[in-house]
């Protein structure tokens, strides 16, 4: 594989995490415009731990997830009362506050005679863990897709479990969920925290591949893109948001002639798609139909083998 393909694949993998994070919140009925904050917290927290304090990435990753997840749970708790557009705007306000505070913050320590640490809009540089340990982009590729595989597996397990149906019930009708004896408050905070932790994985990988991250990487564009991925790809299955990422990064990157007009094409695509499929390509109905089809096909082949 040449370097460009690997970069594109790494991008797809990285964005998949934040898309899944926005998707999880969409399932519980919340539209968040602020998941980029937790992606950013993941990137900064893991970068600070490895670059400034010489930690291993494998230790920094879960710690960054923890930090980001706790922050997300806190925001989730604060915004419990808000719904719909109010929640969306509150998360947006939070994310922009975090981004701007990063712009205003400078905190550096000396590592090998060089100052390292967040430096306002100059960003956090010198995240050399990958370089020092001779990790190539291909190695990161395996790490990203391995982690993504685990997260996806957890998503599939969740969808089949009690937790999955509780989350979807809350998303469909909060009042109904409450009358079923579900502690909505607790689950909302749990979902917000999980979503924050998932977004942080993407951010941590991003920081260690790029080696420098800037506050502007985590602006509202990233957040709304991640939301759009779920809405394009579909809310029926965790594959949906990843399909959305593939459509955006993969397809538009692969087709030469759209290069200069990328946003015009992608924007138009999203707008038209949402007219015909307001819950995305793989929405609940289509997923159900596909599953039935698959099951029918499976029993058919089994039947043939039996004869």
């Amino acid at each position, binding site marked *: 594989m040449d370097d460009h393909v690997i970069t594109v694949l790494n991008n797809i993998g990285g964005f998949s995490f934040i898309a899944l994070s926005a998707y999880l919140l969409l399932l519980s009925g919340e539209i968040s415009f602020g998941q980029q904050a937790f992606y950013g917290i993941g990137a900064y927290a893991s970068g600070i731990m490895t670059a400034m304090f010489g930690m291993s990435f494998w230790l920094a990753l879960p710690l960054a997830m923890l930090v980001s997840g706790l922050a997300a749970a806190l925001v989730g708790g604060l915004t419990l009362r*808000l719904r719909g557009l*109010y929640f969306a705007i509150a998360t947006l*306000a939070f994310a922009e506050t975090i981004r701007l505070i990063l712009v205003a913050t400078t905190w550096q320590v000396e590592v090998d005679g060089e100052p390292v640490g967040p430096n306002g809009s100059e960003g956090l540089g010198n995240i050399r863990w990958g370089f020092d340990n001779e990790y190539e982009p291909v190695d990161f590729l395996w790490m990203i897709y391995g982690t993504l595989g685990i997260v996806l597996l957890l998503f599939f397990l969740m969808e089949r479990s009690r937790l999955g149906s509780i989350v979807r019930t809350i998303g469909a009708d909060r009042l109904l969920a409450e009358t079923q004896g579900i502690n909505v408050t607790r689950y909302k905070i749990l979902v917000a925290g999980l979503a924050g932790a998932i977004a942080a994985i993407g951010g941590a990988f991003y920081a260690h591949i790029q080696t420098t991250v800037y506050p502007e990487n985590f602006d509202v564009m990233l957040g709304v893109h991640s939301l759009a991925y779920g809405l394009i790809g579909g809310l029926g299955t965790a594959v949906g948001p990843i399909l959305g990422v593939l459509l955006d990064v993969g397809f538009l990157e692969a087709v030469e002639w759209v290069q200069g007009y990328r946003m015009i094409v992608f924007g*138009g695509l999203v707008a038209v798609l949402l007219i015909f499929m307001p819950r995305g390509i793989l929405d609940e109905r289509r997923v159900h139909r596909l599953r039935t089809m698959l099951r029918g096909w499976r029993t058919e082949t089994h039947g043939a083998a039996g004869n």
Partner: protein
Amino acid sequence: MGSGYALLAIGFTLIFGVLRRLNLSYGPSIMVGVFFGTFLFLQFQAGWYAVLVATVLGAVIAGAYVERLCFWAIKKGAAVASMVSSFAVWMQLEEAVTIAFPDRTYEFPALGDFELIELGELSVRQEHLIMLGIAALLVFALHQLLFRTRFGLAVRAVSEDPDAALFMGVNTGRVIFLAFILASAIGGVAGYFIMATEEVITPKFGLQATFKGLIAMMLGGMGSVPGAIAGGLLLGVVEKQAEWYAGAVWRDIAAFLLLFVFLIFRPGGLLAQGAAARDLAALRRV
């Protein structure tokens, strides 16, 4: 600055009040108008009235495009889809303008050379006073339009209950479209005066206009015109104070922090009364 924010917030609130949906492309449509105006100025040295007309016209055309694609075409009940779709169109508009105007910044004609007015210890820019006057005038005209004409009645009816309005023989689709046009025109005027005091424009103006308008609207309370004015003025004052005491970055931090705190403790906004409670009820249905 506050009066400019107030005007932006009024445009926002008008669209939200009628549609119960958020138009994120509002700022970018104004940005399209502003670039229309600056194009006339740079190419033909057009006078201020021609630039103003072009700005409003550009904003209205872009607004009409947004309304057709993101709101009219998407079914009722899919408010989230509309919001995301309006964001997608925002990307389109921003890139279209960036391609048409490849430099980072462009000059925008100033209102004229005005001296500072000294009021005791305060000095005030005349442009700001003119903007305040225009804003007051527009608010008055809007109030007359909404409460004294048949069209205004229709707008308020649709805002109250679209289905009931439809049964009463109101052409809701047309009213929504016209309200959108009206909001875009107000946005165009706001954009013109904000730009005429700043004198430089960039494609990033779309983002700023959306954010400032949105924050001001939510501070005041969604869907309420007096709330939008109050929110705009509050935002202007807080931003200036933060900038004065802590520096330019803190100006925006203060704006977003203020919004976040407001949403947590007083989600209905400054004028949280019956109207805001109704909004919340409507949102619960969305």
